[in-house]
């Protein structure tokens, strides 16, 4: 439950992909959280959750990143058991919540630590995991303040696989979008993967691209039904589909969900604004 009126301090976990390739997404998320009365803190020592390595079987390496992540966010939370860590990716949130505990337990044993020590790592991971919340999940708990008149801009929302199947978040983000006046256009085979899969997209790029193209084919039909942009709560999927669209010279706008909300908050939501945001050029 959200404590009405209590100013909450949120620790932002931006994720490496957004940090490096779409900082506007995190900036928008900060804007959205602050507008709703939250204090946002950004533990600057954060890097990456380690999922790339973990999924590829490099668990020792993933565990190094996981231990760093835990140390950074434990320090930021400073023993506040009510503190929240807002993750800008369902997939990274799932990595921390669902995979860290066993990963660190097993890795400790692999390194020759005692079972007691291994258990301690597992519990640390579980504790910090309980304080992680995915961005749209957090947003769904906030009431949509000062709703603008419904503009009915058509969006396709792609729910990331880990968000859907590991965190169990299904219709929440679409409801949020609808609450903010968007018209959510359904997409065929919505529960199908975009083909990204972390480094799988690099090592098995042919298969990965074939899966992405299937998704884009479904997106094509949604565009015919009025979709004007593609969004998601996972930049991994968006970067993949967006990168594929870009290679095909297709300017269809692809934006992170917080960017849409921030634009709505500012009352600047128009299709032109959307397109400009999607193709924002690097500022010098």
């Amino acid at each position, binding site marked *: 439950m959200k404590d009405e009126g209590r100013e909450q301090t949120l620790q932002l976990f*931006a994720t*490496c992909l*957004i*940090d*490096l*390739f*779409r*900082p506007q997404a*995190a*900036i928008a998320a900060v804007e959205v959280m602050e507008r709703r009365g939250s204090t946002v803190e*950004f533990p*600057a*020592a954060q*890097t*990456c959750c*380690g999922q*790339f*390595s*973990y*999924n*590829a*079987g*490099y*668990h*020792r*390496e*993933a565990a*190094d*990143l996981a231990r*760093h992540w835990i140390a950074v966010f434990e320090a930021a939370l400073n023993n506040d058991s009510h503190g929240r860590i807002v993750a800008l990716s369902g997939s990274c949130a799932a990595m921390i919540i669902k995979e860290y505990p066993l990963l660190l337990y097993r890795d400790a044993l692999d390194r020759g630590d005692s079972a007691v020590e291994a258990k301690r790592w597992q519990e640390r991971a579980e504790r910090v995991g309980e304080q992680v919340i995915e961005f749209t999940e957090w947003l769904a708990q906030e009431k949509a303040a000062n709703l603008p008149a419904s503009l009915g801009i058509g969006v396709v929302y792609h729910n990331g*696989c*880990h968000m859907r*199947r*590991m965190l169990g978040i299904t219709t929440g983000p679409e409801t949020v979008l609808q609450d903010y006046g968007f018209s959510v256009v359904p997409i065929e085979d919505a*529960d*199908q993967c975009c*083909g*990204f*899969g*972390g*480094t*799988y*997209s*690099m*090592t*098995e*790029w*042919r*298969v*990965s*691209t*074939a899966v992405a193209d*299937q998704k884009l084919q479904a997106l094509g039909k949604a565009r015919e039904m009025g979709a004007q942009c593609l969004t998601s709560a996972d930049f991994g999927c968006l970067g993949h589909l967006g*990168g*594929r669209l*870009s*290679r095909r010279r297709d300017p269809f706008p692809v934006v992170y969900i917080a960017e849409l909300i921030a634009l709505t908050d500012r009352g600047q939501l128009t299709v032109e604004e959307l397109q400009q945001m999607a193709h924002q*050029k*690097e*500022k010098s």
Partner: protein
Amino acid sequence: MAGQLPIDSRPWPVRRDQALQDKTMQQTIQFVTRRVANAKVAAYTAYPEGERLRQRAVGVKRRSVENMEEHLAVFAQQVEAHGGQVHRAKTAADAIRTVLEVAKNHGVQRVIKTKSMVTEELELNRAFESVGIAVRETDLGEYIIQLAHEKPSHILAPAAHKNRAQIEALFDQDAAAYHTEPPASDDILALTQYARRRLREEFLAADMGVTGGNFLVAETGTLVLITNEGNADMVTTLPPILVSVVGVEKIVADWPGLTEVIQQPALSGVGQRLSSYTTMVSGTRGTDQWEGPDEWHVVLLDNGRTLLKDTPFEDVLSCIRCGACLNVCPVFRQVGGHAYGSVYPGPIGIVETPLLTNFEVLPELPSVLCTLCHACGEACPMDIDLPGHIVQLRKIKRDRHMDAAGVTRSYRWWARFWATPHGYRRSIRWARWGQRWFVRHGRIQSAPGLAGGWFNTRDMPPVASPTFHEWWERTRGKGHRS
């Protein structure tokens, strides 16, 4: 002892590229998998107690596997008390030897078979043919791929990759070879009628039947086969000799257990509450009975299965071969079954193939055929932790140094840098410096090393200036306040 599985020995890139170029196969596989996956969801939606029954079935399978040896001993005792003979086969080679010996002892000329993944595992048809015994598959899908000289592309629907036109062409060829009337058209009824007519001749001419088995009931020594075509009734009753080759993990203790699990393969495989036919064999034909074989041999096949007992992978032995994981897999939908190169394709295949063979064959499978989307884990009616196993198998490969040295080095350095904020910042400085050679029209369009593959088909924005870290530092950080 590690098991033996037949493989397509062409390297993965060759198998993959052939599949990705086969648009007919892709269209057919996508149509079929989507249809049955949707049928499964619809069946569960219309069946309120379905989920509870599924969970009970999981319990039965887990307990059966746990006490496998005990149940198998009872099973053997019961079969032998009812005139059958039980053989234990440690490997595929042992099983083939046993089956061929039975055939030889009776001078068998013609064999008819039910659909069976285990006999695919043995490549039993080839073994029969090599000693001059004719084999006929009698499951419609198996019959089609036998005519095409192919292997199953799906564990439940072996000919899922073939469309009607292709099937008609195969039947036309067969009709010419047997000097019989070809199918009237390529509509489903005409094709099925052709197969029915042709197979009837084969049923009546055979002197040995070979089956697999969906379940074995220990307390009565019963073999249970489920089909939608009734061909197992014919195979188990017409020829005088019956040989059933069954994986040891198919055992259940008793009939209450059987009734808990029996609906699961059809329910999750095709969205049907029960398969159309259930065939049971509990012994040879008694003196007062009209039907049943004069001689019945049950070959219990291990072939690497007991290696999984008491390991974190034991749940794999609960697999009921329903194919639900294949049907929802985005990679399977693109490459189809043959690209896997194993008898067992799809998510279960990339887990089971290396496990049964101790990574001796196709070790690349867990790495190259999965995006870790977890759809298989969600679909599996037996709650097999397929995504978790795939990650663990990748880890085992890494631990056994089965990855290319350069790849391992990349992951190691990546983690070394990113495990500290200082290293992370340094890697960004290098990336900015390095990307200058690769940016075209504001996008990165190529790159060296591990990431290179990405850029064959996709762009990526350059590393942002500022990154979010830098933006925060400038606008909110200490730098800003001072």
